[in-house]
């Protein structure tokens, strides 16, 4: 997946250099969508989902201390 994201951004840059503007924008859009999907997939945890309980835990500890 990462390889496809990199290939898409490189293709967008090359197509724009060659003057193929519409194809470049299409490739860039595909790259943006794939990169966003890959980002969410990378940070998703089966245990926590998209939450960050280690930060919440720290806040709870502060609240308990206060």
């Amino acid at each position, binding site marked *: 997946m*990462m*390889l496809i*994201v*990199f290939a898409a951004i490189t293709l967008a*840059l090359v197509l724009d250099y060659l003057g193929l503007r519409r194809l470049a924008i299409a490739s860039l859009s595909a790259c943006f969508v794939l990169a966003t999907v890959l*980002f969410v997939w990378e*940070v998703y945890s089966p245990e926590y989902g998209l939450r960050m309980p280690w930060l919440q835990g720290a806040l709870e500890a502060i609240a308990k201390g206060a």
Partner: protein
Amino acid sequence: MLASDELLGTSRKDRALAFLNYLYFVAVIGVVSAILITAMVMQYAFGEIPCPLCLLQRVALFGICFGVIANFRSGFSYRNTGLTLLFAVLLLLIAARQTLLDIYPRPGHEYIGTAVLGLHMPVWSVIIAVTIIGAYALKLAVLGGDEELTDIRIEAFPSLGHIARWLGLTVIVLALINTASVAVQCGFAQCHTMGYQLLQ
């Protein structure tokens, strides 16, 4: 020079503003290229294999360059600026999330790689993204819109145009090297920082 500018309907002030705008764009590509080259030196010379989120930050940096290079190649357009800002926001999201992942050290989650001036890559990426978005906001607040750029293309400033052309080509070469590098590191599978998949 002034007379010919007035004949073309552009004032000296517009020309100065256009020059400053193009100088800003050239500086953006120059700085982003320098950051990408530094990351690649850390990877190839010091063996610091990039994590998946680090690679996605590189993609966002290339996306930022796309909008700026397009302004040089096909003339100024707010669409290009929009693309640059979209990728700057993507960079900020990815970098902020990675910073929050590693900010509270626990097994398997600590900043990887060498700190530069005491800050690790994701923290630098947050600063870079905020600087790009903030600088553009400041430019709009102080200088207003970029209307003068539609009348005055970068060809009006030959030396700046020359630098922009070379920086644009540099970004394309960097993207090609990074794509080849990702192919060796990850193949078509998930990326890891343990080693290069195709070299094992």
